[in-house]
């Protein structure tokens, strides 16, 4: 598969993370290039979410650095973040806003101006047709996750996706759609880093895997 050269690689060098007294991992390194898929595995509490948050630059690692195109992500700031799409385990939805309003705000924050048709299309892709104008309060857990994940449809041009447990609360049909979206991103030359307990089958030319263990 063609790798697009203009996408810098995400590189972790000798990462160490301690939460409180506990060291979650140390000496961790990886390199994620465009067109590659990286899955982080490991039991609960092994530091998967912390690793993703460090990779995004939300959390300062106890030791080591994360580089994007050779520069520290915590120095690059907005320059890096505009090329990153992060979906955490929290859905970032407001109960009082409708599904489409929630998605529009999320896109605007990410620097993407999406018109109503694009937003409707994205929700439709995740099987939420008919729910666009319902307040998020009345949506089920799985539907709320779908609204959060519909950002993936709009963020197709964002080179790096970091997804924390994207498959939780989803039904089989939605899992299928999300797997397709991730596969599409990788085949377009984007990079995806994600955690999951679910045995996902995503077609990717290069599929890396890191398993964190309890120390």
């Amino acid at each position: 598969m063609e790798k697009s050269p203009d996408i810098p690689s995400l590189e972790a060098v000798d990462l160490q993370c301690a939460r409180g007294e506990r060291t979650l991992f140390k000496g961790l390194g990886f390199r994620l290039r465009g067109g590659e898929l990286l899955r982080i595995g490991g039991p609960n509490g092994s530091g998967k979410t912390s690793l993703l948050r460090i990779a995004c630059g939300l959390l300062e690692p106890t030791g080591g650095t994360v580089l994007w195109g050779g520069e520290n992500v915590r120095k690059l700031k907005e320059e890096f973040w505009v090329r990153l799409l992060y979906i955490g385990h929290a859905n970032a939805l407001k109960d009082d806003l409708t599904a489409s309003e929630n998605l529009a705000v999320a896109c605007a924050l990410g620097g993407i101006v999406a018109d109503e048709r694009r937003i409707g299309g994205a929700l439709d892709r995740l099987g939420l047709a008919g729910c666009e104008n319902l307040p998020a309060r009345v949506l089920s857990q799985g539907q709320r996750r779908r609204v959060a994940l519909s950002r993936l449809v709009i963020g197709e041009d964002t080179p790096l996706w970091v997804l924390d447990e994207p498959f939780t609360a989803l039904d089989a049909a939605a899992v299928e759609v999300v797997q397709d979206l991730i596969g599409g991103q990788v085949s377009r030359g984007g990079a995806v880093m994600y955690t999951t307990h679910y045995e996902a089958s995503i077609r990717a030319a290069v599929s890396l895997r890191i398993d964190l263990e309890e120390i």
Partner: protein
Amino acid sequence: MSALRSVIFRDLLLAARRSSDVLTVVLFFVIVVSLFPLGIGPEPQLLRTVAPGVLWVAALLASMLALNRVFAADHADGTLEQMMLGATPLGMVVAAKVFAHWLVSGLPLVLISPVLALQFDLPQELLGVLVLSLALGTPVLSLIGAIGAALTLGLRGAGALLSLLVLPLYVPVLIIGAGAAESAASGLGGHAQLFLLGAMLIFAGAFAPWAAAVALRISIE
């Protein structure tokens, strides 16, 4: 820019759909201010003297009441993380949020204050100075409060800690703000205090959002 517009619009929309929060602040302000004439008694000269101070203290307390809501909801549902990883610098997003917060928790107080001041028999020429001082001062309170709210985000007992943190910073604003109408009443004119408040507003507007942004990044780690 579209991100900032959408943050302001979103916060106003949320406030409109949850109007009880906004009403609580305004109602608190109205009740506190209205209780004073009843408690002090119908002595016009005394009421006229205490009016600016009472209105200012009530506005300060009302603005503090609304403070811990500035970031708490966004922190709880994960939106704050998205704001931090957004394409717009966090300081500007914070500025937009504080502005929206002032529109729903500060501006109503400014608008309603001339009506409440009537209970104190405040002369008309002082009303203008009082309203102007509140219009310049309440945004300063919101901006300073945002730093405190960001620092105490996610802590247990954040409410009490927040009051302790911001109160010392609120005091100069209160003294100068209430002083504007008082010195206008004594014939000196309130210009000096209004200019000072304006300077405070510019200073806080330029620096407070960035300080709050740094505090937010620390709180979320």
